[in-house]
């Protein structure tokens, strides 16, 4: 019966061997290896929502405009455009050479059908409201009007006309977003909703989706029909899905990745010492903040208490010691670096730390609290090392300066999100916001009364009317003044505690050229190239 043992062993091993065989031809040419933290939820550009999906989509598709590696708006599929004097009509002229990856020309009609599908309710697009300013868009999303009534037209094959309901100076930057990319009619006709798969997905951008192993890797290869193919250096890009940032760092060290999506939060100074110029840190359009639940006590109708808590936090200390990766302490809501905007700062920003603390103590007393009657508050945050460190630091600061008793509650992300939405149990919660486009409005709109992202449940009539007036302004300078005033009004209410502004951090191999730091953290692969020694490497 010994043979049955051998049989068993043989069975195990042959299962292993057979399922392990794969015979892929090695890549010829230059292929960039990039890391992303998770799979795109979809490569259907209307169903996608995450920054990871957007990153891959920017390599597969192209909108009317795009960004350069230094973060400037440049023409992409459109070679030029005209804007009417009242700012309500935009006319885009497409390049004649734009093509899909099957050789078909990209026509204006493809852009129109793409935008219509974006706002069609049945699509369930996350960014359906990206084009809220376009005529009839909100009505279509809510189902009152049909998609054909959207204010976009294609008077001929090379012209796209957008009609807006209100002047939107940042419209051009919206048109770089993947949700506004065109749609080839055959995609839906032939494949229905499942067109975003390797072998089926048509690209009008520099690369084609060659392969996708969910949970592992996405392989993009050169689109020969791309209009700018001659200036696209890389033959391909592989996006490796690496969930753990420590594992990603190891793979970078082992030479398997050229670009990482992030770096582990610990030992930043050691990383800097070890990698020097390969570590690229740049300001990023994102804010880390604590929000107050304004719908319930103790923070409802209690601006003194909110201000006291906000002033008692030493943001400089947090940014320097706790996160320590070059983040800037936040004294405003809108990050610096936003196009033509000067953020308003909190009134106490210029004060020295001791002065802030004295003032904080006074406000705390005015709110009715003291050492005999301390504030007991719950601080919620989602599970992460960084969040925990910051929460512990803030707990200590509030206790030292004011005598506040803080209970820290660590929740899984989805649970926290659910709690924030319900606004029943939350008091102070950690949250963040990443800008969708390079304009102050992407941040200021978060705290509008109707916004689903308004976790604090902030509502202020003056804020609303200022934003409304800004939205109807054609003149850029006047608009900016309204927005800055709105920010000032909001900050004076202290619905949130801005903590710090994010930085983007990547490890970029010295073999990569063309990398440009920009505030949106967009790094189109078509701008990059690999040095000659990296070519034809497996």
């Amino acid at each position, binding site marked *: *019966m*010994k043979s*049955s*043992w051998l049989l*068993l062993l043989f069975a*195990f*091993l042959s*299962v*292993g061997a057979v*399922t*392990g065989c794969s015979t*892929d031809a090695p890549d010829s040419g230059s292929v960039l*290896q990039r890391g992303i933290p998770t*799979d795109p*939820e*979809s*490569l*259907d550009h209307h169903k996608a929502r995450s920054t990871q999906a957007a990153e891959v989509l920017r390599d597969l598709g192209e909108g009317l405009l795009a960004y350069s590696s230094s973060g400037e708006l440049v023409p992409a599929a459109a070679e030029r455009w005209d804007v009417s004097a009242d700012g309500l009509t935009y006319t885009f002229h497409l390049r004649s050479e734009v093509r899909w990856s099957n050789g078909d020309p990209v026509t204006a009609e493809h852009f129109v059908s793409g935008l219509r599908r974006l706002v069609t*309710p049945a*699509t*369930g697009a*996350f960014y*359906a*409201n990206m084009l809220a300013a376009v005529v009839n868009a909100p009505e279509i*999303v809510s*189902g009152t009007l049909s998609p054909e009534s959207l204010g976009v037209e294609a008077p001929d094959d090379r012209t796209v006309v957008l009609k807006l309901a209100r002047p939107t100076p940042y419209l051009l930057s919206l048109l770089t977003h993947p949700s506004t990319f065109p749609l080839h009619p055959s995609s839906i006709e032939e494949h229905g909703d499942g067109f975003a*798969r390797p072998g089926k997905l048509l690209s009008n951008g520099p690369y084609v989706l060659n392969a996708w*192993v*969910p*949970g*592992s*890797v996405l392989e993009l290869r050169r689109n020969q029909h791309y209009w700018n193919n001659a200036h696209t250096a890389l033959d391909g890009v*592989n996006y*490796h*899905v*690496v*969930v*753990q940032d420590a*594992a990603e760092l*190891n*793979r970078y*060290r*082992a*030479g*398997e*990745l050229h670009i990482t999506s992030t770096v582990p939060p610990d030992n930043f100074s050691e990383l800097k010492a070890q990698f020097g110029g390969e570590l690229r840190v740049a300001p990023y359009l994102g804010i880390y903040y604590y929000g107050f639940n304004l719908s319930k006590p103790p923070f409802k109708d209690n601006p003194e208490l909110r201000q006291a808590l906000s002033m008692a936090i030493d943001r400089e200390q947090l940014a320097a010691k706790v996160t320590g990766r070059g983040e800037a302490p936040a004294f405003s809501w809108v990050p610096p670096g936003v196009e033509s905007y000067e953020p308003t700062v909190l009134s106490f920003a210029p004060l020295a730390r001791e002065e802030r603390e004295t003032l904080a103590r006074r406000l705390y007393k005015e709110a009715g609290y003291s050492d005999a009657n301390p504030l007991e508050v719950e601080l919620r945050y989602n599970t992460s090392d960084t969040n925990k460190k910051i929460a512990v630091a803030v707990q200590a600061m509030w206790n030292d300066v004011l005598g506040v008793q803080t209970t820290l509650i660590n929740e899984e*992300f*989805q*649970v926290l*999100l*659910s*709690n924030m*939405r319900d606004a029943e149990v939350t008091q102070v919660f950690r*949250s*963040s*916001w990443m800008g969708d486009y390079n304009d102050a409005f992407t941040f200021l709109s978060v705290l509008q009364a109707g*916004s*689903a*992202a308004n976790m604090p449940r902030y509502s202020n009539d003056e804020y609303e009317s200022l934003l409304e007036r800004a939205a109807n302004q054609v003149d850029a300078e006047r608009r900016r003044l309204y927005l800055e005033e709105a920010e000032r009004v909001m900050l004076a209410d202290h619905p949130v505690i801005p903590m710090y502004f994010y930085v983007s951090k990547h490890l970029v191999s010295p073999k990569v050229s063309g990398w440009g730091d920009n505030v949106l953290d967009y790094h189109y692969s078509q701008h990059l190239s690999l040095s000659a020694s990296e070519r034809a490497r*497996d």
Partner: protein
Amino acid sequence: MVHAAPGGPFDDERALPADVEANIARAYHLDEPLPKQFIRYLTGLVQGDLGPSYRYRDYTVSELIGAAFPLSLQLGALAMALAVVVGVGAGTVAALKQDTYLDRLVMAGSMTGISIPVFVFAPVLVLLLAVKLQWLPAGWSSTTGASRLVLPVITLALPQIAYIARLTRASMIDVLGRDFIRTARAQGLGTMTVVRLHALKPAMLPVLSYMGPAIAAILTGSVVVEEIFGIPGLGQFFVRGALNRDYTLVLGIVVFYAALIVFLNLIVDVLYGAIDPRVRYR
């Protein structure tokens, strides 16, 4: 039960406008009462349709499981094979050389293997073998050759090797002390022949009984290993599915695991009968 966890598959800080949220809920039947959703799921299940994944929206659950299972199977099978071969070998050596330094070495080594968690020694191995020495790839997707199997299989097998070694040693010592072995020795057979022909099979019975729990341990251990090496196996999809509230994916994998475990237990029972003549099925 899956719906009991707070939050849903489409929740995000980047909140959806109410209209859009309603549209999505309708498309995925999430707006229907739970019993109706349950019936809908069962109907699909019977026809082999496990539904779409909520998180990987371009793929169905069947596709994801279909791609992930062979990978997990491959890893698990190789790890199991390695564990049995090395574990039994080490345990036998330890039993034969009982109370010598070799025995102590094997036992100490196995105690270490059981005590140190996978997520500690796996990164250490990666750091040493992949980053410093660059003998092996650090990530699954970095190459397509068999070298990417080495580290994951070893890390998955190590705790089992340790356990099987101890099990074999104890069992082998017991068997070697029995009368029929003494008879065989008395008849002049050499040690290795005795072990091979007479001692191995009865000593294997406890190991065989352990196969069931071992497979379960490998299944659960694979989650950590898959995470560390970035392997798109079932374990990874299971955990991510739970965190993403990807209801259909989680349900699909649970159903799949259940079927698998029933099947494997059946195999173990049959094997038991094949090995031990005293257990025969009529």
